C-alpha cells in the first residue's frame, strides 16, 4: 500500500482555470472538489479566461510553445487546469499517442483519407490515463490522500497506476463481472480493488453515496467529485489530432460513447483551438458510436429525442456499458449541431471490426475500438459519413484487455509436427 503523502495546499494552483461553470444554467463556482450545480444539478465544467464572451485574445500559448513541449499531454499544460510546474511532479505523463494513417482500412471501407488515433499506446493502454492525469493534479491541489473511481475497467487500472506513481493510496470500484485482464490490471498496482455485485450504473451510484459519507472523506473520486477536471483530459485528444494533422481539424471524427464525456470534451477541444486561433475555423462533424446492447444515446438520436432513456446494458463492449449516460443529452446536441450522427453495431459486428482493424492496420483494439470501427463502416454504408472527407476514428484501448471477445475467432492456422511435409500439408489445406 502506498503511503499518503499529499498535504492540503493553502493556495490552489489550477494554471489557466478560473472557475467552475454549470453547463446547464451558467452559474459559476470557485474551483473546488464539486461536480453538480446547486441550482439545477447540471454538470460543472472548468472555465478559462478564453471561455468568457468578451475574450479577444491573444492565445495564452502559441503553436511553437506547444511544439517545443514534451511528447505527452503536458505540452498542452497552458490549456489545462494544472499548475505550470506539473512537469516536475510524479505522474504517468500520458498522451502523444500515434495518429496512424490507415490507408489499408480506408481502401477496404472506400474512404479517401482515414487516420486511427491509437490511444492503446498510453501507459495503462487506454485513453483513461489522460483524464486521470488531470484529476490527479486536482487531487493533489485539494490535499486528498486517496484516489478512487467507479469504473468499467480501464479507468480502474489508470487510477491504480497514477496513484502508485504519485504516492497516494487508491481504492477503485468495478462491477465484479469484468474481463479478467481488466481485473488484474486494476489490482496489480497495489491499491484496493473492490468488485461490486451489480452493473456499472450501480457502482456509480454507490460511489456517489460514498462521497457524502465520512468513509469517503479526503477521497478524490476522479469521475465524480473531480469530474470537472478529469473531463478536461479528453480535450488533449482533440489537441493532438489537430497538431498531428498539421494544425488542422479533421472533417469527421468517430468517437465511442459510454457516459458521453469524452465526445463532449473532444468537441470542446476543437472549439477552443478555433477560438484561440491555433487552427483555422472550419466545420467538422462528430459521430458517436455505441454497442447495440447498450445504445441509449443512439436510440434517442434515431428517435429524434433530446433526452436519453436509461437501459440495462448487455454487450461484450463492457468499457462502454453505461446504461444511464450522464452526458448523453450533450452528445445528442453535438451530433446534431455538427451534422454528425450516433449509430450502434451488434456484438458480432464489434468482433468483426476488431479483426478488420487488426488485419488491415496491425492495430489490436479492445471492444470499444471494435465499436468505433464497426460504426465507421456502418456510417459509410448507410451514407451518413462522407467517404471523400478527411476522417479520424478513435481506438481508446488495447485488445489484450478483452481477449475473450475474439479468442474464438483468432486461432492458430494449424498445429503440426515440426516437419516440412506437415507444413506443406497444412499450407495446402489453408490455401
Amino acid at each position: 500500500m502506498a503511503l499518503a503523502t499529499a498535504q492540503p495546499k493553502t493556495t490552489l494552483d489550477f494554471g489557466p482555470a478560473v472557475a467552475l461553470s454549470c453547463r446547464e444554467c451558467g452559474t459559476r463556482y470557485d474551483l473546488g472538489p464539486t461536480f453538480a450545480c446547486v441550482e439545477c444539478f447540471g454538470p460543472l465544467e472548468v472555465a478559462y479566461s478564453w471561455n468568457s464572451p468578451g475574450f479577444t485574445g491573444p492565445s495564452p500559448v502559441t503553436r511553437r510553445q506547444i511544439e517545443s513541449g514534451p511528447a505527452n499531454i503536458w505540452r498542452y499544460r497552458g490549456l489545462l487546469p494544472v499548475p505550470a510546474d506539473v512537469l516536475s511532479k510524479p505522474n504517468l505523463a500520458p498522451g502523444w499517442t500515434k495518429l496512424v494513417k490507415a490507408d489499408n482500412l480506408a481502401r477496404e471501407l472506400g474512404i479517401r483519407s482515414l487516420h486511427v488515433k491509437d490511444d492503446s499506446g498510453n501507459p495503462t493502454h487506454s485513453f483513461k490515463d489522460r483524464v486521470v492525469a488531470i484529476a490527479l493534479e486536482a487531487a493533489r491541489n485539494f490535499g486528498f490522500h486517496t484516489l478512487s473511481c467507479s469504473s468499467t475497467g480501464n479507468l480502474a487500472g489508470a487510477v491504480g497506476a497514477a496513484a502508485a506513481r504519485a504516492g497516494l493510496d487508491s481504492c477503485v470500484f468495478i462491477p465484479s463481472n469484468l474481463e479478467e485482464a481488466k481485473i488484474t490490471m486494476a489490482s496489480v498496482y497495489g491499491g484496493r480493488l473492490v468488485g461490486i455485485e451489480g452493473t456499472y450504473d450501480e457502482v456509480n451510484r454507490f460511489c456517489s453515496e460514498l462521497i457524502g459519507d465520512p468513509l469517503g472523506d479526503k477521497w478524490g473520486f476522479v469521475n465524480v467529485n473531480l469530474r470537472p477536471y478529469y473531463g478536461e483530459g479528453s480535450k488533449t485528444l482533440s489537441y493532438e489530432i489537430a497538431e498531428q494533422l498539421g494544425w488542422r481539424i479533421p472533417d469527421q471524427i468517430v468517437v465511442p460513447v459510454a457516459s458521453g464525456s469524452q465526445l463532449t470534451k473532444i468537441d470542446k477541444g476543437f472549439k477552443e483551438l478555433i477560438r484561440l486561433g491555433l487552427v483555422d475555423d472550419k466545420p467538422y462533424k462528430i459521430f458517436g458510436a455505441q454497442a447495440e446492447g447498450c445504445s441509449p444515446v443512439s436510440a434517442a438520436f434515431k428517435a429524434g429525442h433530446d433526452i436519453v432513456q436509461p437501459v440495462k446494458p448487455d454487450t461484450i463492449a463492457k468499457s462502454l456499458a453505461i446504461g444511464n449516460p450522464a452526458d448523453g443529452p450533450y452528445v445528442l446536441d453535438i451530433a446534431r449541431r455538427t451534422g454528425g450522427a450516433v449509430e450502434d453495431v451488434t456484438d458480432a459486428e464489434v468482433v468483426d471490426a476488431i479483426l478488420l482493424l487488426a488485419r488491415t492496420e496491425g492495430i489490436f483494439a479492445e471492444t470499444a475500438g471494435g465499436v468505433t470501427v464497426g460504426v465507421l463502416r456502418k456510417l459509410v454504408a448507410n451514407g451518413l459519413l462522407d467517404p471523400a472527407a478527411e476522417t479520424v476514428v478513435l481506438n481508446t484501448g488495447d485488445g489484450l484487455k478483452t481477449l475473450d471477445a475474439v479468442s474464438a475467432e483468432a486461432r492458430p492456422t494449424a498445429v503440426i509436427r515440426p516437419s516440412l511435409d506437415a507444413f506443406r500439408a497444412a499450407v495446402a489445406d489453408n490455401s
Partner: protein
Amino acid sequence: MSVSVRIPTILRTYTDGVAEVNSEGATLREVLQKLEADFPGIGARILDETGKIRRFVNVYVGEEDVRFVEGLDTVTPDGAQISVIPAVAGG
C-alpha cells in the same frame, strides 16, 4: 407510508446538514411533496418547472432507478429507502 430519504451533499443546506431524513407518502410524488413541506425549496432542486425530475438527477426507490419503473408515480412501500443522486459521468 413512512420512508427515509438520502439527501445528496449539495442539498444538505436545506436539511441543516442532515444526510438522511424521514418522509411520508404512498408514491414518490407524495414523498417529494412532503419533503418540500418540511424543507421548503428542496423540491424545486429535484423537479424542474414542469414538475418532472430534472434530467441530471437520478432518484432511486430501494435499488430501482425510478426511470425504469413509474417515475414520480413509483410506489414507495413502508420503510422504503429513497436516494436522490446527481447524475455523474463515468468510464
